[in-house]
């Protein structure tokens, strides 16, 4: 079964080809079967492979399948090859599973869109690329997937390309990602220079055996560069600006690409390179700091957004920040754990937002919503549970993953009290703005227009069933990683341990053994740390409850309070409402100045120097020939005369030479 790993990306590729080449001719019905079932088949394959994988002993849970040699040049060799290990298995399951549900949902959501076929073509291509990214067994194939999902993201953000804002948002996403990809590529080049291979097993295996292979400085440079790539793809400071704009795309796309899967690629990549990162403590600190700064920064912007999808977008950025805190403090499995639970509840939140839009004829502004609790019960309950999950209320999935990260941020040797504090505060903020969204949307009076009010209806079954499944996952998804102090086994961490550290302490090098110690202290370790862990858990739950309470006070009990507060702190309110003016600052600093530079080069260098040189040479030659062409009289006898004259001159010359 493991041999069939290539089937996982193959099905979406086939779906892409069928939909792309024949979709128009086959019609909507066929497309809406082919698109989801391609993903369904690859999910099925992934599940079967997963069961075979857990049947093996942990040490044997790595499997590579080379399809064919791709680039062979001198000592450089790269294959198209897929790797199954616990990490890529988790990613493949999350990607195919969530994609499958979102594909089904899309059939209902996009039903009346004229671009139905194009939509599923792109979506299948996206899943294919994403699976290449997570299943690749070397950096180059991973990079192909990395760029491929970027392309699909661009295509799907600008899906309604007649809309100016949509096509601009697509371009913005592409360009900002380019900045990150540049760093990622440089990181890959550096890796190749130092190791001569890009294969994960070869590279990390060699490094694990002999950590002195590269200096700390080199490891730091490589990991920082790779992290720049992760920042672009996973929307971290300072490259997060594209993600809120990406909400221009269809809502299931926001759910799939810009919440559940693609944006988590950066976290996956850092976790994949955990061996490298543990060698570079500075990079780890950078990752964790950027992560926690992004978490609180984006959460604060989420306070004042009125567009429900924008709230979710900033929330995604903030949650991605958490994941980077997790991987940045060395708790790679905690980061991946949060990635998984986040895929469930954030995917669900976006799909819920889509369902709300569906009910309200495309309305996005939460100020024009309200009172939907009764009218769209399924959407309400699923959205509500997802919000509880993201707010970190036990026993929902988000609680376990977020708390694991916060605990690691506090206790890990790479961690720091401040990381925990900021993270916990951001968790409270998350609870606040998410419940703000829930209260504004589902509680109170309906503020929609009369016309819209009449049409409010629950979404069709094809949309509510995926919502329900994701809701179940959002509730129980965290139970695979219940920490030891709460009596769980933390199976998720154990499953990932062979890949992301926690290796046998005897053989491990410094970084890994530090990690192992951290795990030991967090796991079966001393009693006082268990008590501390529970204390921190209680604190973070309390903070979340405070956030929910404030949201309840502001948006249900005393709805006039927010306006009064905004009035009192007008400057601050405007600053946050305008997203700290980051877009405007970037516009001035980068876009405008680059435009000026470009215009200068165009006018000064291109038009003046290059065109001037080329045209100057042409004019000069033209002038010379306008003089010289007078010689061509067209009279044969003139030519004959010049031949004669030439002959005479030569004859005279030789005569004179022989005489003297």
């Amino acid at each position, binding site marked *: 079964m493991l041999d069939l790993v290539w089937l996982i990306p193959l099905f979406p590729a086939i779906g892409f080809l069928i939909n792309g080449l024949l979709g128009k001719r086959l019609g909507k019905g066929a497309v809406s079967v082919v698109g989801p079932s391609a993903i369904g088949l690859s999910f099925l394959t992934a599940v079967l492979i997963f069961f075979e994988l857990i049947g093996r002993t942990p040490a044997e849970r790595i499997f590579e399948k080379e399809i064919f040699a791709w680039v062979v040049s001198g000592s450089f060799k790269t294959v198209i090859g897929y790797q199954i290990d616990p990490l890529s298995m988790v990613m493949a399951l999350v990607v195919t599973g969530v994609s499958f549900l979102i594909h089904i949902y899309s059939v209902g959501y996009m039903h009346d869109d004229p671009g139905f076929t194009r939509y599923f073509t792109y979506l299948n291509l996206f899943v294919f690329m994403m699976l290449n990214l997570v299943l690749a067994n070397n950096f180059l194939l991973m990079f192909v997937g990395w760029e491929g999902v970027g392309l699909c993201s661009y295509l799907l953000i600008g899906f309604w390309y007649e809309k100016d804002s949509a096509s601009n948002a697509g371009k913005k996403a592409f360009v900002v990602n380019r900045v990150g990809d540049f760093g990622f590529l440089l990181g890959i080049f550096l890796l190749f220079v130092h190791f001569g291979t890009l294969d994960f097993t070869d590279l990390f295996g060699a490094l694990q055996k002999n950590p002195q292979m590269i200096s700390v400085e080199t490891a730091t440079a490589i990991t920082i560069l790779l992290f720049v790539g992760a920042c672009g793809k996973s929307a971290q400071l300072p490259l997060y600006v594209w993600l809120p704009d990406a909400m221009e795309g269809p809502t299931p796309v926001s759910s799939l690409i810009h919440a559940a899967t693609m944006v988590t690629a950066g976290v996956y990549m850092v976790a994949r390179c955990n061996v490298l990162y543990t060698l570079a403590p500075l990079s780890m600190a950078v990752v964790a700091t950027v992560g926690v700064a992004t978490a609180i920064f984006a959460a604060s912007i989420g306070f004042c957004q009125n567009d429900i999808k924008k709230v979710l977008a900033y929330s995604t950025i903030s949650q991605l920040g958490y994941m980077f805190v997790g991987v940045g403090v060395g708790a790679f499995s905690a980061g991946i754990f949060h990635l998984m639970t986040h895929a469930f509840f954030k995917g669900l939140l976006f799909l819920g937002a889509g369902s709300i839009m569906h009910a309200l004829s495309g309305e996005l502004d939460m100020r024009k919503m309200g009172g939907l609790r009764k009218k769209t019960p399924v959407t309400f309950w699923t959205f509500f549970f997802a919000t509880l999950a993201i707010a970190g209320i036990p026993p929902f999935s988000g609680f376990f993953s977020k708390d694991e990260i916060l605990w690691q941020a506090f206790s890990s040797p790479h961690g720091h009290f401040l990381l925990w504090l900021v993270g916990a505060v951001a968790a409270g903020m998350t609870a606040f703005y998410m419940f703000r969204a829930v209260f504004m949307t589902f509680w109170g009076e309906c503020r929609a227009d009369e016309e819209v009010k009449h049409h409010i209806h629950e979404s069709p079954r094809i949309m509510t069933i995926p919502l329900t499944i994701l809701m179940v996952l959002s509730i129980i998804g965290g139970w695979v990683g219940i920490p030891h102090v709460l009596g769980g086994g933390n199976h998720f961490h154990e499953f990932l341990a062979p890949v992301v550290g926690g290796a046998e302490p005897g053989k491990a090098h410094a970084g890994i053994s530090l990690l192992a110690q951290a795990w030991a202290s967090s796991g079966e370790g001393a009693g006082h740390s268990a008590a501390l862990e529970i204390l921190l858990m209680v604190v973070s739950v309390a903070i979340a409850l405070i956030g929910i309470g404030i949201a309840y006070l502001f948006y249900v009990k005393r709805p006039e309070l927010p306006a009064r507060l905004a009035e009192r702190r007008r400057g601050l309110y405007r600053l946050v409402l305008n997203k700290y003016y980051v877009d405007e600052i970037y516009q001035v600093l980068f876009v405008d100045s680059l435009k000026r530079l470009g215009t200068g080069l165009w006018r000064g260098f291109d038009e003046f120097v290059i065109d001037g040189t080329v045209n100057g040479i042409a004019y000069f030659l033209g002038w010379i020939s306008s003089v010289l062409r007078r010689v061509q009289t*067209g009279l044969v*006898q003139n030519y004959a*005369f010049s031949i*004669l004259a030439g002959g005479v001159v030569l004859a005279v010359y030789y005569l004179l030479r022989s005489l003297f």
Partner: protein
Amino acid sequence: MTIPEVPPVLYLVLSGILFTIGVIGALTRRNALVVFMCIELMLNAVNLTFITFSRFLQSLDGVLFAFFVMAVAAAEAAVGLAIFVLVYRSRGTINVDEVNLLKW
């Protein structure tokens, strides 16, 4: 009486005179046929030089070359005259002054 041997220099002088007449004719005359005949004259002047040197150097090389020149001249005459016929048909003249499209 025996006819005295003609000194070779006279042959060469004759050849020179013929060649010069040919050159002047080719450069100055306007009728293509006349120009053509002048060119033949130049060729024959050269032939005469070949024969002269062949005789005085007791070598057949010059004779050989003279035959070559004659053969080429005959072929050239065939082609040249055909061209003149065609030029005359299309332009109504074979005056080389008026056939002057080959210019800037």
